């Protein structure tokens, strides 16, 4: 495995070089809000033990709102103008493994049969520099859903902290290899400092539940009273879904920009909203909060895995940390796993 050694100075020079070359560089913002754009002279801080931002990096591949095309009233009819995104080459610096993993999971739904070029173009234009994650709290459970703090899934390059305070950057994909060559002169080749041994220096989050068991229980308990109990305090906002790196439901609406002309927009939507499944006739298959909550959990741990072979959850814990009423998805999976045993 090729590995570079990066000091704070070379990291700073690296970001400056990327920005100078016209690339967009995104990293978790210091204020903890989400992945934000770095300017050439911003101080770059890679801190593997920092708490995850409130919002995931999903927004870069699947924006909260984007135009699908433009419509213009002309000559008594309409003219449509494509708005496939022209994406600037982008580097995501210090992506958490639980964020980087989302790309592969989302690619499944965005590309089965119909290929969503809005998502694909953004993925294709992006180099993901992952980061070994040293943050742990009671809401993390990546190891229960197939991830790990040192997982390279979704990354092109991967940062590991070295004992001397510098960073090691491993090349973990062909795209990463091609990309890094142009900037190799900024780094030392090889890694003089010993990389921290993950199993020694980092405690892995313990595996809290067996995702396969959770799926089995869900498939046989559609009408279980557990769903009402688990969702009793849920207020039905979409903070969990919008913070989630893999929730991908969306709405499509038209919005006029000037009279008669405008854009067809795709906006984030969530199964927790009562309107989500409401038919025009008024019939609503999921009119009750408990039904919507059941859908959220079932889609993540049963339906998506059985359809696409992936749990629709990376164990990042953002939904739980952000939930205004403290609903804990990890604890729910543990409970379901317990009921399955």
């Amino acid at each position, binding site marked *: 495995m090729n590995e570079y050694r990066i000091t704070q100075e070379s990291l700073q020079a690296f970001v400056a070089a990327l920005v100078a070359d016209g690339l967009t560089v995104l990293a978790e913002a210091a204020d903890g809000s989400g992945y934000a754009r770095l300017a050439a002279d911003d101080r770059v801080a890679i801190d593997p033990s920092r708490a995850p931002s409130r919002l995931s990096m999903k927004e870069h591949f699947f924006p909260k709102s984007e135009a*699908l*095309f433009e*419509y213009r*009233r002309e000559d*008594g*009819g*309409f003219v*449509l103008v*494509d*708005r*496939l995104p022209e994406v600037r080459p982008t580097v995501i610096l210090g992506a958490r493994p639980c964020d980087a993993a989302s790309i592969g999971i989302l690619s499944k*739904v*965005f590309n*089965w*049969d*119909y*290929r*969503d*070029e*809005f998502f694909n173009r953004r993925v294709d234009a992006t180099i993901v520099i992952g980061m070994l994650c040293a943050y742990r709290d009671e809401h993390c459970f990546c190891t229960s859903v197939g991830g790990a703090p040192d997982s390279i899934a979704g990354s092109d390059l991967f940062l590991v902290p070295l004992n001397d305070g510098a960073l090691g950057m491993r090349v973990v994909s062909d795209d990463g290899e091609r990309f890094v060559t142009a900037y190799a002169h900024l780094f030392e080749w090889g890694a003089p400092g010993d990389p921290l041994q993950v199993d020694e220096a980092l405690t892995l989050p313990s595996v809290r539940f067996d995702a396969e068991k959770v799926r089995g229980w869900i498939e046989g308990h*559609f009408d279980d009273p557990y769903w009402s109990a688990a969702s009793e305090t849920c207020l039905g906002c979409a903070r969990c879904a919008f913070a989630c790196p893999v929730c*991908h*439901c*969306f*709405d*499509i*609406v*038209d919005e*006029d920009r000037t009279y*008669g002309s*405008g854009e*067809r927009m*795709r906006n984030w*939507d969530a*199964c927790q909203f009562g309107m*989500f*499944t*409401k*038919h*025009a*006739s008024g*019939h609503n*298959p*999921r009119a009750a909060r408990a*039904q919507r909550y059941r*859908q959220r959990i*079932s*889609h993540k741990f*049963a*339906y*998506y895995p*059985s*359809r696409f072979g992936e749990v629709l959850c990376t164990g990042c814990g953002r939904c739980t940390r952000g939930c205004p009423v403290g609903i804990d998805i990890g604890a729910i999976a543990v409970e379901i796993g317990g009921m399955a045993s």
Partner: protein
Amino acid sequence: MTNIYRPELMVIREIIDETPDTRTLRLQFRDPEVAERFRFQSGQFAEYSVFGEGECTFCIASSPTRPEMIECSFKRFGRVTTAMRRLNVGDTIGLRGPYGNYFPLERMKGRDLVFIAGGIGLAPVRCLIWNALDLRERFGAITIIYGARSVDDLVYRRELDEWSAMSGVRTIVTVDPGGEREGWNGEVGFVPAIVEKIAPAADNAIAVVCGPPVMIRYTMPVLTALGFDDESIITTLENRMKCGLGKCGRCNIGDVYVCKDGPVFSYQQLKALPEDY
């Protein structure tokens, strides 16, 4: 590299008012090349656009055997259908599709067909009825049982008359009790009761059932009692959809996406799904 969300442009050639609140649009593609390419099967649906208002999901109500016009029938409910009702002949509509699966015409070959529909649920069935009638020699006896709330709510009235007049086609039209009026010489009663009364033979037959959820719920046991097995009962699900492409998540039921794995399901398939529709 195509934009899967971009509709093709169509022109409204004709507007037919089926009932006071239901309307059929007859549409043609603006671009003849697109019209040439466009192929669909009975039971498939499309996303129709009114630009500035949004998209709406309807089945294609016309038969693939009559490709010169695409027809959709709709009731005014929300933002898009309200806008759609304001459109005139010559106005533009967008169409994405066709999407979803379709009625198993191959499996229906050589069998008797029983069509049961309620309200605007006749639209997808109508597509299949014309499809079958245009290929008449392939199928056995055809029975059509159609019901609506009242005489005024019956859609495709002229076609009901046409089917009634055909030999080899048995057409029974019913209205809910209280929905009849003077001179009405059809049946009076809810669809499940009429199906029970007519009692179509289940032998070598396939039943296609479309309509409001409550009608479907009460018709299924009647068909079962008549001897139709679960594989020989076919219905469609009318979930709310946005993308039609298996992405937006709205029509997800269990591990099924109605827009891709449906909208056509056998009763057997339906029974295997969580009751989330």
